[in-house]
């Protein structure tokens, strides 16, 4: 009954972690997983999020076993 939470790039550097498992609960949203994992730290502006490798919104529901990721604007290419 967990959700895997991942951070990348400058967000992982600023928060000091890359990977955490949080307990899943009913009616949990992507934003809730941040609140659970970040220990009270506010979600920085311009951060993007993904659920199971697809972009999503902060109010997207999260299921048991999902992987949720938060990251800064992308800069590839």
């Amino acid at each position: 009954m967990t959700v895997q939470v991942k951070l990348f790039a400058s967000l992982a550097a600023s928060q000091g972690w890359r990977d955490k498992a949080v307990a899943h609960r009913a009616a949990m949203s992507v934003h809730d997983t941040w609140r659970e994992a970040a220990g009270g730290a506010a979600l920085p502006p311009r951060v993007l999020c993904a659920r199971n490798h697809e972009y999503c919104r902060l109010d997207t529901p999260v299921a048991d076993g999902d992987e949720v990721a938060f990251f800064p604007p992308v800069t590839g290419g």
Partner: protein
Amino acid sequence: MTVRVMGEAFDPWRALADHVLPVPAAQCGATAVFVGHMRDVNEGDAVARMELEHYPGMTERHLEAICAAAASRWALIDTLVVHRVGVLAPADPIVLVAVWSAHRAEAFEACRFIMEDLKSRAPFWKKETLPEGSRWVEMNTPGHT
């Protein structure tokens, strides 16, 4: 459709030469190619090297989705996208996007579409090493004008 994320240096021209098309080459009237290289300067600062981080799994899935979207919008024969991750030196190739079609309009437009979506949506992040330390690149330069 082929998507590759490379942890080692790659030669884009070799990748093109080695690519096996799904149809006889005589059916491909047009090939549009974009190759991006690492520059040795950014925002006025000398850049000695660069580290490219990505989100394994989401990266490949997103690049495949971009190519599929292009193939549904234009009449394409094939697409090839190769992107580097890891530590790069100036002049190293970062990205290759190649599109094959019967005619040039589709090839040009789809190549630009794939490249612009990759730059703005694919989960890669650049960290530059400067003489005085390192910094994350905050945003990409604008593409479409």
